[in-house]
């Protein structure tokens, strides 16, 4: 349906939805031309059910579905007898489980690709970062003397895959945590035993009639989250680095303006780099380059989207078109030949959006098929063939583009990315000492790991950008991953020049090092890099992570993965502020445990505060208290 708004009304609607300047003209187009977006669907979904929002809706068994009156009236128990506390806790564990599973299954797929590469059965891959391979091999106590690169990689892959099972009973990377933090996990009984075991046990625990103690359920949630952060996610990061190279500091471009009117545009969307790395290779194929020119294009332009985009940006400098809420807008530019999707955070209606134009959606994962997409299934053994086929399909589709409908807004923004822990160490001259000195000296008050998604309930990118600006103004360094980092990129915060927006002390540190006040550390599985950085800081000071002047923030979170990330931050000792309320407010006990009680368990807790200024106040107060605790 085409709706004609007067220009003022249209401007107001667009303004309420996003702060992304490159998104605004395209968003206006979607409204005028009736191209449905997530914002329209949010509106159509109103009102959204309060039982669900407060976590008191239980739909696990067929005696239900049941719901509890969150105002304390009747009914106060489900048919099985579960009260609000139990129902809320089980629902939360369910979400956390799903998130931990998503990260870790992604990790497993990267490890399996490394295994096939090491065995010589993967097409187009090689082990790129031998240094990191050796580091990880040493951690896993894998003998390397006289072994080939592939033999070592195979042993590392098998060593990691073993940690998804139930026999080994511990996850090697948890040993990267400071001893004091590990001691907390052991005392509390939340040291994870394996990746899959914790997830499966979590599913068991939410079955009807398995325990009724909400705290016991939530503690298992923390254990499962740790199995993700220090397990599945960390493996995904490390093995991706081994396979495709550990990120180094580099410059690139961001926003919808990275799409090119005269080129074949391919968007790589989703989370897993294993296929998209091959698409990057395939796009350089001289025959395909020639074919693109034969079709009248100037060449092939790749652009990332969401975390597949972040992975390619960090390692290859591929420009990035936007974050989660940009995915439909990218298609609505009318300039995209193919959007390649792997999995996670891809709108199920994406093919409907694509159908408004010539764009083809190419699904590549057996796990993630979408009706209306061209399915070109990826397997390591035929990776390059698949990638070449995808690029060819895009080139051929260029002829069908209607140039009159192309709307590529403005110019892209420059950004700096690639801040792996190794790259940060490099920038500091090979040691964390300058950072520790700056923190001890007060030039940097503390650091915040800002992560998470977009959510149309809050103005797109506003939560991330406003909180980042507020924190750096207060001399608090910000490190980011995922959609948060892309938001900062679009807002120009990932540039050394953004140091001008920081407080004087942080500004001088950034200027001395030539780095931005907000550092892009990668995709959402790369939140594990933040854990590693925190662990290194804590070890250098001989304290637990919970004693550091650190905080986490997820201002625009929406996904189950974010539940897992926030939980492993807290379980690792990092106070975390959420900008969107989690589905727990139907239970006073769960709220109290998560907002306060956990302090006595893991030395950190959650807070919920959508307002960026107030969130910054909470974070600064926490950081100052931790500084006091350390005597700095």
């Amino acid at each position: 349906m085409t709706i004609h708004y007067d220009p003022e009304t249209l401007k107001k609607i667009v303004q309420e939805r996003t702060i992304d300047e490159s998104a605004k003209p395209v968003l206006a187009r979607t409204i005028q031309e009736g191209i449905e977006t997530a914002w329209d669907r949010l509106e159509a979904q109103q009102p959204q059910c309060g039982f669900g929002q407060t976590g008191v809706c239980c739909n696990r068994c067929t005696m239900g579905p049941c719901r509890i009156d969150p105002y304390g009236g009747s009914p106060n128990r489900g048919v099985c007898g579960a009260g609000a506390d139990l129902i809320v806790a089980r629902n939360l564990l369910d979400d956390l489980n799903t998130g931990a599973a998503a990260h870790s299954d992604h990790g497993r797929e990267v490890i399996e690709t490394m295994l096939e590469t090491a065995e010589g059965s993967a097409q187009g891959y090689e082990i790129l970062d031998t240094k990191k391979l050796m580091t990880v091999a040493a951690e896993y106590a894998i003998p390397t003397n006289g072994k080939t690169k592939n033999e070592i990689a195979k042993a590392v892959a098998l060593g990691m895959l073993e940690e998804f099972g139930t026999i080994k009973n511990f996850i090697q990377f948890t040993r990267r945590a400071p001893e004091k933090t590990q001691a907390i996990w052991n005392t509390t009984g939340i040291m994870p035993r394996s990746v899959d075991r914790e997830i499966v046990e979590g599913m068991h625990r939410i079955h009807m009639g398995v325990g009724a103690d909400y705290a016991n359920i939530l503690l298992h949630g923390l254990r499962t989250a740790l199995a993700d952060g220090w397990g599945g996610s960390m493996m995904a990061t490390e093995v991706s680095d081994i396979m495709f190279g550990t990120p180094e500091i580099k410059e690139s471009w961001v926003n919808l303006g990275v799409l090119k009117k005269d080129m074949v545009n391919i968007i790589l969307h989703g989370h897993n780099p294993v296929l998209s790395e091959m698409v990057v290779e395939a796009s350089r194929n001289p025959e395909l380059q020639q074919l693109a020119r034969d079709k009248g294009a100037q060449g092939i332009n790749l652009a990332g989207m969401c975390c597949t985009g972040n992975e390619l940006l960090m390692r290859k400098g591929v420009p990035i078109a936007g974050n989660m809420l940009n995915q439909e807008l990218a298609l609505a530019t009318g300039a995209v030949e193919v959007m390649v999707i792997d999995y996670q955070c891809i709108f199920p209606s994406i093919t409907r959006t694509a159908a408004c134009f010539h764009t083809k959606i190419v699904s590549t994962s057996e796990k993630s098929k979408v009706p209306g997409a061209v399915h070109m299934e990826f397997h390591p053994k035929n990776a390059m063939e698949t990638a070449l086929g995808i690029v060819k399909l895009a080139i051929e589709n260029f002829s069908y583009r209607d140039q009159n409908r192309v709307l590529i807004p403005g110019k892209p923004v420059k950004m700096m990315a690639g801040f792996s822990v190794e790259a940060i160490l490099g920038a500091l001259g090979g040691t964390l000492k300058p950072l520790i000195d700056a923190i001890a000296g007060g030039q940097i008050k503390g650091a915040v790991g800002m992560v998470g998604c977009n959510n149309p309930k809050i103005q797109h990118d506003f939560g991330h950008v406003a909180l980042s600006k507020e924190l750096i103004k207060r001399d608090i360094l910000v490190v980011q991953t995922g959609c948060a980092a892309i938001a900062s990129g679009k807002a120009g915060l990932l540039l050394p020049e953004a140091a001008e927006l920081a407080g004087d002390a942080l500004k001088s540190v950034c200027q001395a090092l030539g780095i931005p006040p907000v550092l892009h550390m990668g995709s959402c599985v790369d939140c594990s890099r933040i854990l590693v950085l925190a662990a290194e800081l804590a070890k250098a000071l001989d304290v637990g992570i919970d004693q550091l002047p650190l905080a986490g923030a997820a201002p625009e979170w929406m996904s189950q993965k974010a539940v897992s990330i926030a939980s492993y931050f807290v379980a690792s000792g990092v106070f975390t502020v959420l900008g969107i309320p989690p589905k727990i407010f139907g239970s006073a006990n769960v709220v109290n445990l998560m907002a306060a009680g956990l302090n006595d368990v893991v030395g950190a807790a959650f807070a919920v505060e959508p307002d960026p200024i107030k969130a910054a106040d909470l974070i600064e107060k926490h950081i100052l208290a931790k500084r006091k605790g350390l005597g700095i």
Partner: protein
Amino acid sequence: MKTVFVDVERCVGCRHCELACARAHQEPVPDSGQPLGPDSPRSRISVELGVDFLTFPLKCRHCNPAPCVQVCPTGALYRDPEFDTVLIQEDLCISCGMCAMVCPFGAMTFAVSKKTGKKTAYKCDNCIDRQKKDQLPACVEACKTGALTFGYVNEIIKEAKKNIVLDLTRTIQGGQKTSIPENMLEFQAIRETLARLGPLPSSK
């Protein structure tokens, strides 16, 4: 007069009342349990979003005098004296829409009548058939948070007064402000902030 009374603070926007209303008016057998489809009767109550994620179930308030009855040129709208309920005689309705224009609550819609085969005025009938069987109106029965209750206004207000005084004295004594649990008050405060920062209606 007995009425469906709304406690707006307790409405969670679940829309159970809408579903129950549609089911209660299934034809030929009300509450037959058949799946609802495009031809099923539409709900006569609708939960709408206000500011700060607050919601309100809108339905016919059976006003007296009722503006719709007053303006109906054919007498299709009339008051049932026994149940004090505004009803529609569909074969008299000329679908002029006057009733919908004057209704203060947006409670009047138009739907194809099984009886006449054409679109006629369509609204809440206070579940008279259910009342005759000593059942509550379907929307009230479906409401699990106490946002909808059915009874004589004076009696409901008498109960409400008790809570008002309890809340008032709690505040004087420095206790929790209302009978609404603290966690739900916190939730509402967070949603108020969120509404201010997003595209959905906000009070700010």
